[in-house]
């Protein structure tokens, strides 16, 4: 038995991990996600903002960490726009601001069937992923009082109308902007200023002159006459800075330079890898909250009442994979102890 366990092929281990992720997804196990104090702090920080407040979102990440950070981006944008909070985006990493732009206009945002019906009534495009047809990007339409979608891809079913809202299907819209009730106007409610070269210097320059440091929006237009920046001078006119951070420059620099020098509240969403490094800042209050990895994103989704979120969906495979890994460590150590006894 011992010999057998010791010689397990690594491919068997790989398979176990793959299955622990795939099976819970296919079976659709769902867990309620309880929140943790760190996430509650973030939620409080957003919840305490008056409607009309301005938040800076600093997109300090790129595609390598989008798996953990992008769900946070979606949930935060959604919360801000639903609650009438103005959002100014900048990126200290070259591709970060693009990812936020994607979250707003392109990424899949899942919604509940009820929400889908409401959005169709508003005239927005809603897509369906259906269990029967194994293809996606099908738009739902209302025909003769019935919600239908047309399946054009599958062979033999060409152009066939299917009845939407069977309980097994799931629904999504493209971009946060389509998932909310309000109309979000660029330049008034939302401003993406794109990548800002200069790393820490961008932050220090923003302390006294936000508009001057940001200067242009993502397409190169000057921002100084836009409505969203009216009355905005120093960083103290910003109500909260949220850094979506996966390295340097990122949340650490915002804490050290923006909070350290001007006492502006800074909160962050970080990859789980770097989460422990920020614990001292949470303890001392230099950070007003932290979302740590996919679990942090899921907890924020729970806190804001968005239960179709991508992060929440990921929590059941995450749970099982953790169990499997713990099991591996335990078995490995039992073998180790038994062998030590033998010799």
């Amino acid at each position, binding site marked *: 038995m011992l010999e057998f366990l010791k010689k397990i092929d690594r491919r068997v281990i790989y398979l176990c*991990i793959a299955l622990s992720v795939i099976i819970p997804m296919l079976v659709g196990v769902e867990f309620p996600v309880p929140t943790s104090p760190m996430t509650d702090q973030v939620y409080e920080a957003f919840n305490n903002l008056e409607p009309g407040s301005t938040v800076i979102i600093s997109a300090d990440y790129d595609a390598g960490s*989008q798996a953990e950070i992008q769900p946070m981006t979606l949930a935060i944008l959604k919360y801000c726009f639903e609650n009438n909070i103005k959002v100014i985006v900048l990126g200290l990493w*070259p591709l970060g601001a693009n990812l936020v732009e994607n979250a707003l206009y392109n990424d899949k945002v899942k919604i509940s069937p009820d929400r889908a019906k409401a959005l169709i009534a508003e005239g927005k495009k809603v897509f369906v*992923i*259906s269990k029967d047809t194994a293809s996606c990007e099908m738009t739902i339409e209302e025909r003769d009082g019935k919600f239908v979608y047309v399946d054009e891809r599958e062979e033999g079913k060409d152009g066939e109308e299917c009845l939407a809202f069977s309980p097994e299907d799931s629904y999504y819209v493209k971009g946060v902007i389509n998932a909310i009730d309000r109309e979000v106007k660029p330049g008034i409610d939302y401003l993406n200023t794109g990548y800002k070269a200069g790393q820490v210097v961008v932050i220090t320059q923003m302390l006294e002159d936000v508009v001057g440091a940001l200067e242009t929006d993502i397409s190169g237009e000057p921002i100084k006459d836009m409505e969203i920046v009216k009355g905005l001078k120093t960083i103290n006119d910003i109500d909260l800075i949220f850094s979506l951070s996966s390295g340097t420059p990122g949340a650490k620099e915002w804490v050290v330079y923006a909070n*350290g020098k001007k006492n502006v509240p800074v909160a962050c969403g970080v990859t789980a*890898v770097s989460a422990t490094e920020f614990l001292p800042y949470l303890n*001392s209050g*230099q950070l007003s909250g932290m979302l740590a990895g996919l679990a942090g994103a899921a907890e924020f989704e729970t806190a804001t009442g968005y239960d179709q979120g991508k992060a929440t969906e990921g929590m059941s*495979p995450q749970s099982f994979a953790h169990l499997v890994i713990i099991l591996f460590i335990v078995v490995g150590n039992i073998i180790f102890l038994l062998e030590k006894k033998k010799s």
Partner: protein
Amino acid sequence: MAEHIFVGTSAGYGFVVTYQNVFKPMLFDKLKDAGSEPMNLILIIPLIGGIMLLFKLSRKNNWVARYPLSFMVGVGSGMGITNVIKSDVISQVHAIIFKNPMWISGDIWTSLFNILYVVAVLTSLLYFFFSAEHKGAIGKTARIGIWFLMISFGAAFGFTVMARISLLISRVQFLLEDFLGISL
């Protein structure tokens, strides 16, 4: 192939973005306005500095790049010194002493936990103290420090495992949903 095209594209993109975001608004547009705003002419200095930086590519004359480089490094370290002292030393020590005091009357648990916090900080700092041998009382205290450090590394370990799995989950979500069109 796709990767190479992408590297080329994103480098080009970086160039375009920097042009639109730094060179055009901060340099060229302002130099053009120099007629009405003579102070803008001063921007010729960083322009020259930037060009000097490019001498780094030259084997023979790369010392020219040292001038702008030393300016950047100097500003960076001068700025870093003060801000890091404030955020990572003084604010930390201040919070340990005043924000989470070791004795809060009526709240024995928080008091105990805060005492534990102070002990953990002190013993961990002692572990990284290299001017005295780890023998006797110092050695024993530093050993307690290493336990606290290990617990914190354990937490980091748990978090890192979580991060790796999250990435796998996102890949699987993509494969199942976007590629195979399976509703999850």
